């Protein structure tokens, strides 16, 4: 039977491949001897011993076949002899390739450093991703995130007003906590020394880390700013293989830094963000090292070494271990600084083995967190990391990467490890001895400790109301708590009632719809996994039902792996998303913030 003719997409992929070839890539394409040495280095192989297709060289062979068929002598003349006859021909073949390139590899590069020939298998897999992305073949999550990053400038679709609003919110909280009016987060300050770029996850799910970073910059007396544009240090181009997107994202940051006239870009704790901004972005955008750039871990370490920050490690006295982000450790050689910093701010640090450039992936790398269709396989591959963590006896796993926070969170929950994940910014902020930091020491001789701003008499009522609002931030609000587990419902109801809210409960999706229509809450706290009508189905119905479709929804779930499932629905995304177990303070402030934004929009 004759072979089908190549489809247009295949031809486009072949054209694109030619553009991606350079000497180093070709070296990796011709250098593999199929020795199988990479096999035992891959977390997918080790956790799927009965599936030979997990082996890294098989994944790299997918692009190698295309190369040999089109660019190599032997492959052109005797394709069957070198496996070049098995190239993709139909669009169905591309779906198979998609599953291999996106679903069986996190591009962690562990196989690369274990290849005797020096073949960069992870780079070859990224090339295959790029070829597929170029013809529109990619997981839905990757498509959505890439679209957001192209169109909105950040990968989580955060609107500019939401971003600025979050910074203001964090500024207010920080100033309240410090009792000092000068700690607000500077926005678009020209001539600052440092521009701080963050991960949009911080805005969307964990703004606390922005506040902690602001505290640290303030305490160190840094002249810093956050930008209103080009603030996303992450870069989905790294994951999708789309160098065009990669270059565009990096350029946004560089251009903004240039516009503000800053001396340096400091990148918040994000593995792929650091790699993309600090290294790959320079190459993708074609700019030769536009600015000095460093991770916030390096910045914090330097502040402590220079005496600008004073820390008390006994404030972090739990046993901690450190997980190296693959992008940081293997692709950027960035692994000693976090350890040095950890030893300064904690009392009981236990090293995970293997570590540094030999560490295993958290399972969340390579954009895996956005591809929910591969979640079961990803979680299975997490067994290696789970065993590593378990062996340390750590209560806290520290990492310098937001993807790793989510990936590790899933692994910890799935394998019942009972520990929590933190970032260094959390530990440093917690260990600060504010009175001895630069901001206090450098004030003019005899000057008093900065005090809260004096509230004019005319504003005293406002101030009193503000105090009351802080005490009961949900006073006058109506919240519908939807969760099938009674103890969780009781907990959530208690927390919301203590914060001043009027609360109604629902135990499943049907009750949720019914009570949303009658109770007309200001916000719905929604569990996803429930018997009967699930939270996902209830959410979609809520969004499609006139009269209740505008009610803000905050997902509170014990299944973080469902995150993408809900974001993939063809309805507006939920306003908030929290993982269980949830911290009371974080829950209340987060929910209050969502309602506040809703009110502002309504007005």
């Amino acid at each position, binding site marked *: 039977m004759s072979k089908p003719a190549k489809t247009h997409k295949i031809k486009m992929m072949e054209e694109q491949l030619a553009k991606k070839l350079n000497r180093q890539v070709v070296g990796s394409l011709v250098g593999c001897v*199929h020795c199988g040495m990479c096999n035992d280095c891959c977390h997918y192989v080790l956790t799927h011993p009965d599936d030979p297709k997990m082996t890294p060289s098989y994944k790299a062979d997918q692009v190698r076949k295309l190369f040999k068929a089109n660019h190599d002598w032997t492959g052109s003349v005797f394709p069957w002899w070198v496996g070049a006859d098995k190239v993709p021909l139909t669009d169905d073949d591309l779906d198979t390739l998609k599953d291999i390139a996106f679903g069986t590899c996190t591009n962690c590069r562990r196989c690369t450093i*274990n290849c005797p020939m020096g073949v960069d298998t992870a780079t070859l897999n990224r090339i295959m991703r790029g070829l597929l992305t170029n013809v529109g073949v990619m997981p839905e999550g990757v498509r959505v995130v890439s679209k957001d990053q192209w169109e909105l400038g950040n990968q989580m679709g955060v609107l500019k007003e939401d971003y600025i609003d979050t910074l203001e919110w964090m500024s207010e909280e920080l100033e309240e906590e410090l009792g000092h009016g000068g700690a607000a987060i500077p926005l678009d300050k020209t001539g600052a020394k440092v521009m701080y770029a963050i991960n949009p996850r911080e805005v969307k799910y964990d703004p606390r880390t922005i506040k902690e970073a602001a505290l640290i910059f303030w305490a160190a007396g840094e002249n810093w700013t956050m930008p209103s544009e080009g603030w996303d240090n992450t870069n989905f181009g790294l994951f999708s293989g789309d160098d065009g997107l990669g270059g565009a994202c990096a350029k946004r940051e560089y251009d903004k830094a240039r516009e503000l006239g800053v001396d340096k870009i400091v990148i918040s704790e994000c593995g792929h963000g650091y790699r993309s901004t600090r290294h790959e972005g320079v190459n993708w955008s074609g700019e030769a090292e536009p600015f000095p750039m460093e991770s916030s871990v390096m910045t914090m370490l330097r502040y402590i070494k220079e005496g600008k920050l004073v820390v008390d490690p006994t404030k972090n006295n739990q046993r901690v271990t450190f997980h190296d982000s693959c992008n940081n450790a293997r692709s950027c050689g960035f*692994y000693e600084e976090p350890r040095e910093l950890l030893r300064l701010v904690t009392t009981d640090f236990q090293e995970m083995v293997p570590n540094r450039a030999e560490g295993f992936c958290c399972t969340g790398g390579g954009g895996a967190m956005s591809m929910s269709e591969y979640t079961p396989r990803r979680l299975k591959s997490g067994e290696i990391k789970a065993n590593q963590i378990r062996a340390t006896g750590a209560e806290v796993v520290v990492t310098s990467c937001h993807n790793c926070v989510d990936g590790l969170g899933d692994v910890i929950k799935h394998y019942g490890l009972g520990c929590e994940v933190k970032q260094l910014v959390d530990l440093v902020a917690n260990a600060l001895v504010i009175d001895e930091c630069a901001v206090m020491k450098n004030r003019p001789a005899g000057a008093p400790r900065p005090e809260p701003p004096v509230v004019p008499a005319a504003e005293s009522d406002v101030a009193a109301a503000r105090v009351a609002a802080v005490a009961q931030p949900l006073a006058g609000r109506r919240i519908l708590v939807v969760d099938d587990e009674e103890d969780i419902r009781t907990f959530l109801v208690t927390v919301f009632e203590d914060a001043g809210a009027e609360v109604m409960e629902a135990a499943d999706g049907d009750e949720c719809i019914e009570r949303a229509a009658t109770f007309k809450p200001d916000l719905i706290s929604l569990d996803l996994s429930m018997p009967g009508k699930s939270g996902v189905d209830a959410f979609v119905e809520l969004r499609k039902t006139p009269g209740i479709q505008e009610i803000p929804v905050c997902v509170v779930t014990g299944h973080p792996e469902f995150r993408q499932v809900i974001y993939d629905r063809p309805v507006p995304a939920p306003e908030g998303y929290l993982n269980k177990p949830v911290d009371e303070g974080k829950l209340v402030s987060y929910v209050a913030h969502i309602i506040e934004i809703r009110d502002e929009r309504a007005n």
Partner: protein
Amino acid sequence: MHESSSLLHTAEVVHWAALITMAAVYSLRLRWLFNFKPGADKSAPGAPHRTDKKRGANYSLFNVAMPWSMESTRKGFAFYLTFVIFHLGVVAGISLAFLSTITPSLVGKPAFALICGSTLFLAFLVAIYRVFRRLFTPVMRLISTPDDYFSLFMLTVWFGLGVVTEAHLAGVRGFESVNILVAYLFLTSFFLIYVPFSKISHYLYYPFTRIWIGRALGHRGSYPIVRG
């Protein structure tokens, strides 16, 4: 001239012609490789206080002699040993072929015969193990092409014939026929011509791929690998 001597002479001529062919094809191969544009990393060095491109390249190039440097060779030390024996066998086999035409007296000396013969014999055993591994391990079967199989089969036969040839050259009783050497030289000639078109040419690329990945990771700061 004795018939077999004439055949031996032809084998020697073909053998050297094959070597020249291989060199010519290799030159073209390298020209082809270097016609691709070089990849450049414009970013600032990742950990200049600790390492750089040069250190990374040196570490990477010589890690073949440092089995502790990679987890794959550290944990799979037995496999690493088979790799060493296999490649020493290739060196011994090539040496045997060329020295037998240049200084036949040397290859017949007992010391040479013992070292070369035993190396080839061990390499032959390793090659047989590799054949089985490639044929019967699902992962290896999945990733293997006809070229992978043929190259390995050919080398296995070549090692075996090398052992017999060394026995012939050392004057071991029962291995007197000069046809043994003739066959070995013809097989080596075929080997030399086939190699540049096959996976066996990996050794041509080896220094480049190792140096390139070493420079890349040295620049970023992750080579040499640090453990703790």
